[in-house]
């Protein structure tokens, strides 16, 4: 299994500002995923981040709003740009294990936009 940490664990931000969320994994992984979980809802995939290439975004999510960095095999960041109250969600980092059917999750970053 993989141990995943995220920073910050929570934040309250002003409308129009940006927040960068960090994801750190205790082992090298090829595939990392970023999910959004809106209040009381399920997880929705934002993008897939493969080290050394541009992130692949799901329908409804764009790079200008959610830029992602993947500088190495243990770290990734997700930025939520020009925030609005609708961006208030939990943002979760996830990694795929050695077997592609293994997927592990970080504890999430709870974002509130006022």
């Amino acid at each position, binding site marked *: 299994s993989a141990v995943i940490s995220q920073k910050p664990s929570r934040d309250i931000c002003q409308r129009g500002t940006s927040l960068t969320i960090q994801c750190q994994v205790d082992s090298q992984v090829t595939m990392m995923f970023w999910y959004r979980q809106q209040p009381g809802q*399920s*997880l929705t*995939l934002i993008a897939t981040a493969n080290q050394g290439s541009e992130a692949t975004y799901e329908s409804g999510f764009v790079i200008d709003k959610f830029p992602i960095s993947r500088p190495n095999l243990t770290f990734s960041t997700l930025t939520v740009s020009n925030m609005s109250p609708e961006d208030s969600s939990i943002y979760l980092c996830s990694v*795929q294990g050695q077997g592609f*059917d293994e997927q592990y999750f970080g504890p*999430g970053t709870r974002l509130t936009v006022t």
Partner: protein
Amino acid sequence: GESVGLHLPTLSVQEGDNSIINCAYSNSASDYFIWYKQESGKGPQFIIDIRSNMDKRQGQRVTVLLNKTVKHLSLQIAATQPGDSAVYFCAEGPNQAGTALIFGKGTTLSVSS
């Protein structure tokens, strides 16, 4: 599009009872399913999985049943405990490296003692 979903948003049981959480999926080509448990303030945690060549798989106090004919799976928790209180999600698993899980809507399980 294809989706994975759950039947009931909430389930309340007494401690010691057996719990059954249901999930319907629409993609008949799906061949791998996982149940996750998400406690408050935490990320989802793997509970149990099943592949489409099986119709039942048992773990410790948990059993997953898969009915491919009606595209339905369920999670059974035996002797439910207060620590089982959480949101449970079924997810359609990846069929190749680089593809992510697709989550259904969750069921909130509340266990009273």
